[in-house]
């Protein structure tokens, strides 16, 4: 496996780029890259011989921390520091809904594979909010149970601040990572908390389930402790810990073929990890500042053997690689 650098866009945004995701292709257009930035905009990019900007979408206040695309490729959502989730059409930038659940911040977003639910990491509410995508109503709140013996006034309540979410490939489970390093797994259908996955003691900023058809229970987590953990999310066990990043691991994504994962870190590098060897096989140093997001293009279309990987960074730039 190998990443080959394709192109980079310098100053893709006016300020740090914090989030990226691929919007699936629709009937009338190819898949697009969606990026969110501190400059309060969300931008769309098309890839053919380098990245070309398609559109700049405004209407996001105080920095976009996360973006998510609906499986249909028609709509997308963004979360900003002002704690609003804005749902908009990809092609027209028409606001469909503005989601707000008071007293909870919003961080990472993800649509479930079926596209019926949008999960939003709920920050200090220590919960994940599930929004119905048909009517944009709050469907359920998956709360992390408070450890017993802790008074509500205890500051440690803060530590369960939820930062990241990930849907299992079948959409039945949902994992969320929090500031204190614990990962909580929920049964979505029953809206029930299942268990914690332990091992990190620093914020878990990114989570992703394995895409390999036979390793569906495998969950990858990226944490500020510089480690990437591989969990069996149902067996509650830590399978392996990958060390190598010199600073926080900010983002992790699994390759569509399930054989590798890519990580982005504060140490300004993007690493490609071979899951068989459990070692970094490639270190890419295109970026000059923290790499906030990495995203593999989902396996859309017909028989595309090469997948794209995008990385976005505080250096305002986007880099694109092909994975083969």
């Amino acid at each position: 496996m190998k990443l080959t650098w394709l192109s980079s866009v310098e100053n893709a945004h006016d300020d740090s780029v914090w989030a990226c995701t691929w919007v699936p292709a629709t009937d009338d257009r190819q898949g697009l890259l969606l990026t969110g930035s501190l400059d309060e905009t969300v931008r769309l990019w098309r890839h053919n011989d380098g990245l070309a900007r398609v559109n700049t979408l405004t209407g996001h206040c105080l920095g976009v921390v996360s973006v998510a695309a609906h499986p249909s490729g028609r709509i997308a959502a963004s979360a900003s520091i002002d704690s609003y989730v804005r749902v908009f059409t990809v092609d027209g930038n028409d606001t469909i809904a503005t989601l707000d659940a008071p007293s909870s911040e919003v961080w990472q977003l993800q649509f479930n594979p079926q596209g019926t639910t949008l999960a939003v990491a709920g920050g200090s509410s220590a919960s994940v909010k599930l929004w119905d995508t048909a009517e944009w109503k709050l469907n359920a709140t998956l709360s992390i149970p408070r450890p017993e013996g802790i008074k509500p006034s205890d500051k440690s309540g803060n530590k369960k601040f939820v930062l990241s979410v990930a849907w299992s490939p079948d959409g039945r489970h949902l994992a969320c990572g929090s500031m204190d390093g614990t990962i909580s797994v929920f049964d979505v259908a029953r809206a029930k908390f299942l268990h914690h996955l332990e091992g990190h003691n620093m914020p878990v900023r990114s989570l992703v389930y394995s895409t390999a058809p036979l390793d569906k229970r495998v969950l990858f987590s990226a944490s500020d402790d510089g480690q990437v953990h591989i969990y069996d999310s149902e067996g509650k066990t830590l399978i392996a810990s990958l060390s190598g990043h010199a600073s926080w691991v900010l983002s992790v994504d699994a390759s569509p073929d399930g054989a590798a994962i890519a990580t982005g870190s504060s140490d300004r590098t993007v690493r490609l990890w071979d899951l068989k060897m459990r070692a970094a096989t490639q270190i890419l140093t295109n970026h000059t500042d923290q790499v906030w997001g990495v995203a593999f293009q989902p396996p859309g279309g017909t028989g595309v053997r090469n997948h794209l990987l995008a990385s976005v960074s505080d250096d305002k730039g986007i880099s694109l690689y092909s994975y083969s």
Partner: protein
Amino acid sequence: MACVYIPVQNSEEEVRVVLDQLPRDASDILDILKAEQAPLDLWLIIAREYFKQGKILQFRQILEEGSSPEIDEYYADVRYERIAILNALGAYHSYLGKIETKQREKEEHFIRATQYYNKASRIDMHEPSTWVGKGQLLLAKGDLEQAFNAFKIILDGDRDNVPALLGQGCVQFSRGRYSDSLELYKRALQVYPQCPGAVRLGIGLCRYKLGQYEKAKQAFQRVLQLDPENIEAFVALGILDLQTNESAGIKRGMEKMQRAFEIYPYCAMSLNYLANHFFFTGQHFLVEQLTEIALAVTNHGPTKSHSYYNLARSYHSKGDYEKAVRYYMASVKESNKPQEFVLPYYGLGQVHLKLGDLKSSLSNFEKVLEVYPENCETLKVLGHIYVQLGYTKKAQEFLKKATKNDPRDAQAFLDLGELLISTDAGDALDAFKTARNLLKKDGEEVPIELFNNIGVLHFERGEFQLAEQTFMEALGDGIWVKFIGSNAPPDPNVEAGSNPREETQYNPINKLNLERVIEEGYDTMKEADSDNMKVKSEHVEGAQFNHTGKSVFRPIAARLSILKFTHMQVFQQLEENGIAVELPCDKISTLFNLARLLEQSHNTEAACILYQLILFKYPDYIDAYLRLAAIAKARNNVQLSIELIGDALKVDDKYANALLMLGDLELKNDDWVKAKDTFRAAKDATDGKDSYATLSLGNWNYFAAVRSEKRAPKLEATHLEKAKELYTKVLVQHTANLYAANGAGVVLAEKGQFDVSKDLFTQVQEAASGSVFVQMPDVWINLAHVHFAQGNFALAVKMYQNCLRKFYYNTDSQVLLYQARTHYEAEQWQDCKKTLLRAIHLAPSNYTLRFDAGVALQKFSASTLQKTKRTVDEVRATVAELKNAVRLFSLLSVASNLHFHGFDEKKIETHVGYCKHLLEAAKVHCEAAEREDQQNKQRLELARKVIVAEENRRKAEEQRKFQLKKRKEEDDLRQVRQQEEHLERRKEQWKSSTPGSKRKDRPQVEDDDGVQGEKRRRKGGKRRKRDKKSRYETEEAEADEPEEMEDEDASMNYRESYDQINDQDDQVEDNPQDLLAAAGLEDSDAEDDAAVPPSNASRRRRAWSDSDEGEPQQRQNESSPVRENSVDMQESD
């Protein structure tokens, strides 16, 4: 049968004296000689005969009688014989003087000899033999110049005088002019070929001195042919043989020495050489005997010195240093000139060194060095002595010289390297490398310590790859190889474009091995763990794996490693499975260093395994516990870290480093009292000598001073004073302690002495930017704080940014907060906002940041609204930001219900209220601005219309003009035609009259006038329109005025209310001491806020936040000389 005949006086008869049968009593002969008035030559012959027979007394008796005054009188005219007798006496006394050891008697003899020669000279000034005698005497006295003159006088008279030639030869030899000497001896031989062998001895010696050993040898052999018992020749030949330095030669030499010894057992030279031989064969008893004889028989200083040296050496090698010293001393005393015989000085130096008398040893070796300034051994020894005496510089000098003189001496390079470690790591590394290469070249085994040192030096220089290679080479093969996984981190430069095959090559095979090793251990364990083994999936490419049917992801190993931080079970399992887990004890340090290296290059997993391997085999290796604890701490696993330190303390509860680390952790846990006790314990454990303990206490005091939310000035002052005292104490002990200097700077800054503290910080910063191990972001931050406090905002921002980038990979929200605060003070609102948003993004659960962001937005809006001139866009942006501020504050207000953060609800309400008020006011503004904008638009529209109208008009005009022109042209044409017609007519008329044509021209002129008038009119119209425009402008200006008035009123209001809110801010700023403290934005509002102190406490970072790293890191220096702040950490390697 030799005999002499003494003629009987006055007769023809003669008395026959058989020389062999001379009477015992010389008086008998004397009587005869006197009675018969025998010729003086007979006297001499008889005296000489006595001398030959060893009857010295008789010899003297006869000669003394023969030189008595009555003889002189009687034989007054027999001059030559009288002179001969005197000369014989002179020569005799010269000889006595020469061999006499007692100074007084020696001189007496010489005086006597001089007297005789003088007497002889009085008889005949020019007698050569007298001069020869005189020359010999002078030679014996050591007066070479005069002897030379004496011999010269003779040779000037008779250049073939053999005795003089020999004498002069001797003089030249003694003067060291061997070739001259050789010439003289040769001439003597030519003149007198039958001369005794001794002359050839001289030739041999000259040749020897000239380095012509073969010819010397021939000469000596010739001597032996002539005189088979000539000891000197034997000894000389023996020495020559010995000097060949071949075993055969030495054997021959020793045989010759033995022969000499057999011929004459009292030749000191041969004795010495024999003793020397037996010293090397180890027969010390013989050595002693021989040298004692030698000492007894000789008075010759250098020879004696040699003998003493032999004796001393013998005792030296037997370990009897007392006696050795005595004899070396004796030897030194005998020769007294190190130039001639330097060995005893060397021996003396060695023995003194052995006895610990460094000073004496030093002086002796220095004497050796004077003689042999290039001698490596001596240079090295001197280097060592200087090291021990503490003169590192000098030691380095000597060792460097030694390595220069002998670039193949591995030991010297090794020594030099060790010496340089503390001063110049680069040179030390070079020296070590040279030593390693030399050892390798010689096929010797390179000691693991050397590899270790090279590795550590590479490590310190940040050359991790090289360091790792070296460590691996040092460790060789062993179980650890299997545990070191992806040790060679992929080359970051290998990227796009390179051959894909190459890239797959760094398939870290070791990693697979690790898996296998662990799996082997795992197989036996899996049954017990089968519950956990539900993952039965097979990886797509998992078939390549040996263990098909099992998941690629094997839960066991990593779970153990991470959660429990222990591989003990795995190791045990491995042993049970028959795989030996072995770790030779000389490799622990290197293994530990390797682990440190892996840790440093972020391969913490492998590092953990190695540390645990060490602990598995050597559970007392505390440092491994501490490193594991440090790793846990870095991952914020405080609990585990404390447990690990607990384990370490179980091994040694007085281990200062463990205690100190525990203290740090307790502090991190906010366990103040405990932390202080721990630090105290650590300090006691080291008798207060460990600067780190003192430093920690200093930090503790500083924290205590600034932490209390209700600042008690008195308490604060005492704590600060105490902190300062402790820092100073450390600085006194170790003047180069950066952390103490930093601490002192902080205290000074806290007291408002910014300039002093700035200097301090700058110096510390410079000093800290040299080593891989010294990471001091704190000092950068402190420096930035000082810049900030002094109002140097731009510089402060720059400093914060550099610090963030250099040390934190831009991940520290606290430093971002400082930066935001600086922007805030500098009124750079957008930068402030962006910085705060970044901080929030990094630390989403820090509500203080959100609050600050709200405040910044609010302030921005307020200040924009206060501005007298602003654009609509600005006002709009203000409104937007105000909305954001309201949003932020209201979110906080909601969150405060849930007690997530410590903000006072009321205060937030105030902010929300204020912002809302501001927003309303702003709305007015916005409306006004929009109205204005509307007007502007209208105006623009109007202007546009005017322009359009103008344009239309212009077009119409042009149209008209065009038509006019056209008409005119038509007119002209018509006119021309008319004129032509006219002309035709005229022509016809001309025939009658001409004047009518003038009148007909007029209408044309009128037409022209008409066009001009039209133009004039148009210009006037333009002017009018311009007037209209300026009238609009004035209207505008008039319309603006009332609005501005309103503005001012409104902003007055804001100002008032804003001032209330900012009162605290201002108070803080009034107090210079607090300026620094106010570096966190939250201070302005958090004075009475219970939740803020923790961030307050961490507000100023200080030495320890990193020095806790620093200390254990230094621990890996074990085998290298230890730096001053890790005095007690050296491991015996």
